[in-house]
């Protein structure tokens, strides 16, 4: 049975719906990310899990016990805040010891635990500093150590890396993954950064307008999204319009070429007008070989972005699409030229147009 079960949860503030119909199970030891644009409800859900927000409807249960209305101090969930919320008047060691003193641990046990937590987050020599004397990354580590000190079942993290610069963010991502592995604590992580979500999570729940749009492992959501929203929110994507071929309903026509439905069930979709998506990294240059889908496109622009070259193409239907290519492959693609492109058919996604509003 799942550790944490969220059943049909909803939250409304004076007629504004923040969350609706939320169902989610989290297994013990899992790293689940709640991902979505700001205002999508992900933080409201996290606050409901922590007990700071009372849901209007639905139930949250831990180990099969209803905890929907349990006070935050009785839930035993760690919480890492955006901006850390460290106690400014306490030293690093006393910040970490706070939850242990509240629980009336023995002095020796507290000292041992604080030392253990400090070395877990690599701050052994900063025990006596005050939070304001630490850098952002160090404060972050203290916040994590403080939230983990009392051995919580679940660690809730609210955009903990958003205040850090890019380099530090990547280091902290690895650090969080390591802490997750080493402690075995269940992580529920809120972020609006899809790269962060993809890099860290076992599963991602994608939020929009107060609903969970899709839940799944990052790879599945990236490779086989079933909604336009997820296809566009995770990673870069090209959306093109397509339609069922007049002469063969098993074929799709789009961007001046045709190919078979890449997903078996897509044939059941009503309507002839479809949305086709292709990831920039799946487009290659050259004549199609074997099963590959070939098409011709005009190079509009060619820009160097480091390891890769970004090429803006105009297809035969007049739509634009972006391709990212390794520099040596892109040398021939000069603006104004018409070039042959190819795509592996399994990399093409087709979605019914009805879901484009989601």
């Amino acid at each position, binding site marked *: 049975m799942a550790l944490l079960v969220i059943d049909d949860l909803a939250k409304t503030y004076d007629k504004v719906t923040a969350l609706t119909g939320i169902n989610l199970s989290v297994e013990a030891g899992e790293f689940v990310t709640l991902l979505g644009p700001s205002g999508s409800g992900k933080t409201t859900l996290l606050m409901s899990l*922590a007990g700071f927000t009372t849901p209007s409807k639905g139930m949250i249960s831990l180990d099969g016990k209803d905890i929907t209305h349990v006070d935050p101090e009785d839930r035993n*969930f760690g*919480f890492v*805040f955006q901006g850390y*919320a460290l106690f*400014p008047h306490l030293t690093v060691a006393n910040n970490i010891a*706070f939850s242990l003193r*509240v629980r009336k641990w023995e002095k020796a046990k507290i000292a041992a635990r604080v030392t253990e937590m400090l070395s877990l987050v690599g701050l052994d020599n900063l025990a006596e500093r005050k939070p304001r004397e630490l850098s952002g990354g160090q404060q972050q580590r203290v916040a994590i150590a403080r939230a983990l000190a009392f051995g919580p079942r679940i660690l809730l993290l609210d955009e903990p890396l958003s205040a850090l610069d890019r380099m530090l963010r990547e280091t902290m991502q690895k650090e969080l993954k390591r802490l997750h592995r080493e402690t075995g604590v269940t992580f529920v992580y809120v972020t609006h950064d899809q790269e962060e979500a993809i890099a860290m999570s076992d599963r991602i729940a994608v939020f929009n307008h107060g609903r969970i749009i899709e839940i799944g492992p990052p790879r599945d959501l990236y490779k086989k999204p079933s909604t336009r929203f997820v296809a566009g929110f995770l990673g870069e994507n090209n959306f093109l319009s397509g339609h069922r071929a007049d002469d063969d309903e098993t074929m799709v026509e789009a961007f001046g070429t045709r190919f078979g439905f890449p997903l078996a069930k897509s044939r059941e979709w009503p309507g002839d007008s479809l949305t086709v998506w292709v990831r920039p990294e799946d487009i290659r240059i050259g004549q199609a070989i074997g099963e590959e889908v070939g098409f011709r496109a005009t190079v509009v622009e060619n820009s160097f972005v480091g390891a890769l070259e970004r090429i803006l193409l105009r297809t035969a239907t007049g739509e634009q699409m972006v391709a990212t290519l390794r520099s040596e492959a892109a040398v021939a693609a000069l603006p104004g030229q018409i070039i042959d492109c190819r795509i592996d058919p399994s990399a093409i996604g087709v979605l019914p147009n009805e879901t484009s509003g989601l």
Partner: protein
Amino acid sequence: MKPRRIIEVGLPRLLAWCLLGFLFVPILVVIPVALTDRDYLSLPQDGMSMQHFAALADWSKGWLPSMLTSAGIALACAAIATVLGVAFAVGAWAAGGWWPSLMRILLLSPMIVPPIIYAVGMVKLWARLSLLDSYTGVILVHVVLALPLTVLAIGASLSNLDQRLVQAARSLGARPMTVFGKVILPNIVPGVAAGALLAFVSSWDEITVTLFITGRAVVTLPRRIWTSIQDAVDPALAAIATVLLVITVLALVARALVEQRQRQRKF
């Protein structure tokens, strides 16, 4: 010095010193007056005398009892106003919403309403409750007058405090009283201390309302001074002003020393 520099730097500096002199020299006049050898307010004529200071220490002359009365009332007022101020300010800070703002305006009204109007109202009310000329009555009135000061000072301290500290403490298992004692209070100590000091001082030299609601039983220091000005211009007044001046200067020096030591410890 070049002429331009004299205009840009020298002139403003001279002005600043003149202003300071204008503020403080009149205060210093009380010192020689306190040392006068005559028994009316004057500068020393044939020599200096400590007789007026001696009179202050004489219990039967009434200065010492009223100083003790004032100190007692001011301490009680500071204690009560600080506790109430902390309770209100922390409650309003934690609750948020519209009602704390409304309550704050109500609480600040003693600062806005002229004291004389307040005093007239209090005479009527206290007469009915038979609290006229009683310690309880004076302390209660002083508490009401001091509350805006403590609420403002403590509120200012709280406005710098991150609301999420409360959530952080609760997520770590702290119950409301622990959150208050271990997280909120330690972080607003400067505001609480400032509030208590302001409350003490406001009670210590409150005269307007006190004049209306006290008679013979409760004689605070400001009231004693007021009475003595009315019937005779006693140089003891200058002596007491000198004592208060010295206490104030000592307090300021002590504060500066403590601050300097704290700053040194930090680096």
